[in-house]
């Protein structure tokens, strides 16, 4: 459970980035570690962590010491324990947020750190939180998903979902509790974990996640078991007193925003003047809850690049820009990108220029070029096929930003094996790499969604070869463009309306 894996070429160390939140100081340390202990780069993962691919075992103690200096570690990023608690990368700044999910992510992080009862679970355990209706944390695809909501009296509490997950058996989580009062959070989680610890399967690692237990017991019976255990734990020692909740909340207090009007003349004139900048604003900039501010996404998916990889220089550039433009704060998203959570609208153009110098201004967030790919057979011991070069080839096909913007929102996810670390099950277009007779083949799924309307994608037909699959993805997109109702109908909505038939026909007609 110390985050060190032996992979194909070398060790891999996974460093925890709790709920994807980093200070510029921490980012500089990650850059330093990439240089001093690795080969000059790191990889940001689909669980908001960072991975180093080449540390030497003998260097790991020194590496960990360097992390400790900036309050970081690699605890519980492997093993059958509670892993990194992830959250909405827009936590604390999203419009319409009920409460900042990082507060509760931190509470859960502390409670789950070296928890003596839950360190040897049947399998790994992943928890995610969202504080808004729009789910940017994929809570429905986690072992426990938590949504911060209000009840009919306006009291803040949680919707608790359980038993979601991908891998061999993708399942959307079911709601076990519609509303859980705040103070009951940790006792309720203990109840779920305890039931799982005792009853989860331990005979077969592919049937050991909590989703299997929820399915085999049935939600009703599973809920009974949890609620029964909860009656013993409610109000007990693990319940957090209000003082502690308030103390932790204070850590996530808003930065000293300036009082500004919304909208900015500088921003508007820059958009008019520069088409490239305007395109970037359209895809990479999101609405902030504070007037005059914006949320900026930094794409780590340059055309033909390795998704989620960042060099030490890029990490330092982001740290500097964060200091200059975003109160020194950075977020890591589960789509392998970075976010600067609070940038003044009037400074967006300067920031964009700063990002451009370092190749960090690709205007593709949430679009065809923003491909999510696991390390795959280029790095990973578990993989059957490569995912990165497939991502690169697809990225090159959709190189043209105007074309990407015309296509509109589209998620493409690639996994190199059934463990689904690329989250291909929930990609609008998902690719699963398999191996057959020494060749890499890719199974295409369509219609997946990772948001509040979570859906598992469906296999469209026989797999495609490594050479053919980029073209096949292009065919799928072309089919959508031909058949969409209008420019506003997204790929995933068009697929829901049309079904698989037109895509099957286009892909397989000539075969």
């Amino acid at each position: 459970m110390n985050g060190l894996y032996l992979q194909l070429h070398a060790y891999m160390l996974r460093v925890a980035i709790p709920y994807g939140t980093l200070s510029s100081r921490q980012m500089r340390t990650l850059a330093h570690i990439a240089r001093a202990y690795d080969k000059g780069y790191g990889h940001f993962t689909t669980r908001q962590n960072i991975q180093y691919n080449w540390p030497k075992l003998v260097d790991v103690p020194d590496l960990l010491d360097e992390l400790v200096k900036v309050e970081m570690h690699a605890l519980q990023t492997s093993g059958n324990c509670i892993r990194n608690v992830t959250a909405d990368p827009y936590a604390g700044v999203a419009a319409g947020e009920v409460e900042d999910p990082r507060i509760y992510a931190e509470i859960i992080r502390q409670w789950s750190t070296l928890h003596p009862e839950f360190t040897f679970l049947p399998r790994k355990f992943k928890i995610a939180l969202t504080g808004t209706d729009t789910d940017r944390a994929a809570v429905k695809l986690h072992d426990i998903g938590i949504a911060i909501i209000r009840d009919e009296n306006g009291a803040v509490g949680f919707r608790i979902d359980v038993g979601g997950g991908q891998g061999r058996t993708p399942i959307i989580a079911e709601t076990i509790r519609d509303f859980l009062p705040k103070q009951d959070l940790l006792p309720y989680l203990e109840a779920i974990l305890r039931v799982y610890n005792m009853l989860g399967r331990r005979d077969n690692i592919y049937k050991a996640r909590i989703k299997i237990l929820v399915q085999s017991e049935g939600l009703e019976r599973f809920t009974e078991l949890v609620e029964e255990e909860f009656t013993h734990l409610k109000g007990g020692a693990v319940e957090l007193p209000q003082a502690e909740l308030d103390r932790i909340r204070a850590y996530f207090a808003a930065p000293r925003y300036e009082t500004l009007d919304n909208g900015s003349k500088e921003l508007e004139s820059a958009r008019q003047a520069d088409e490239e900048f305007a395109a970037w604003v359209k895809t990479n900039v999101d609405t902030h809850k504070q007037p005059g501010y914006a949320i900026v996404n930094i794409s780590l998916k340059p055309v033909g690049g390795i998704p989620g990889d960042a060099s030490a220089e890029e990490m330092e550039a982001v740290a500097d820009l964060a200091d200059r433009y975003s109160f020194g704060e950075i977020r890591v998203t589960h789509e392998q990108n970075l976010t600067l959570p609070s940038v003044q609208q009037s400074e967006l153009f300067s920031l964009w220029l700063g990002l451009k110098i370092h190749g960090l201004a690709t205007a593709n967030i949430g679009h065809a070029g923003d491909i999510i790919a696991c390390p795959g057979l280029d790095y990973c011991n578990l993989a059957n096929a490569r995912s990165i070069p497939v991502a690169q080839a697809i990225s090159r096909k959709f190189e043209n930003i105007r074309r990407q913007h015309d296509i509109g929102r589209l998620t493409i996810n690639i996994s190199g094996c059934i463990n689904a670390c690329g989250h291909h099950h929930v990609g609008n277009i998902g690719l699963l790499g398999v191996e057959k007779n020494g060749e890499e083949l890719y199974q295409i799924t369509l219609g997946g969604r990772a948001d509040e309307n979570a859906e598992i994608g469906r296999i469209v037909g026989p797999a495609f070869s490594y050479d053919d699959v980029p073209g096949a993805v292009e065919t799928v997109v072309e089919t959508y463009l031909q058949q969409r109702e209008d420019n506003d109908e997204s790929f995933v909505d068009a697929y829901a309306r049309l079904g698989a038939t037109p895509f099957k026909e286009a892909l397989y007609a000539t075969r």
Partner: protein
Amino acid sequence: MPLVKNGEITPDPWTHIADGEDAPLDAPIIVSTDRWNAERASLVHRNAPIGIRLRNDQLPDELGEDLYRFGVVAIEFPAFKDGRAYTQARLLRERYRFTGEVRAFGDVLRDQLLFMQRCGIDAFKIRKLADAEAFRSTIGEISVFFQPAADDRRPVTALRNRAVASWAY
């Protein structure tokens, strides 16, 4: 296999009796739940202490009130990765307020001793002698804890609040 209790290697007064094995009448023995259920009438009338051995898929509530007759509850770690006994231990201490000995046996290794102790296990049949000898230092390796468990260590949240409370005076 050395037994560690109260931080030290100590002679083991208890004998594990397998099902079907003859049970000495006047020595402390640990039997399985199957044996207890089958021979309860005679076992209850023994003069010597009796202990119970749980399989790690059993819950303590199976024992009912009989739990409090036992001088020891032995819980198993069939492989160190099988963490069910941690839950059994906590339930024994926190739910059922069992005050007898809770002992761990099986794949009991150094890296897990502190977790076991925090869950309320107070006796350890440790696989390797070197691990048994290192018990005290192992237990002392970590001094700050984030969550309450079955031990009497106060988690950091309680310590903070106590500190705050004391400033108020």
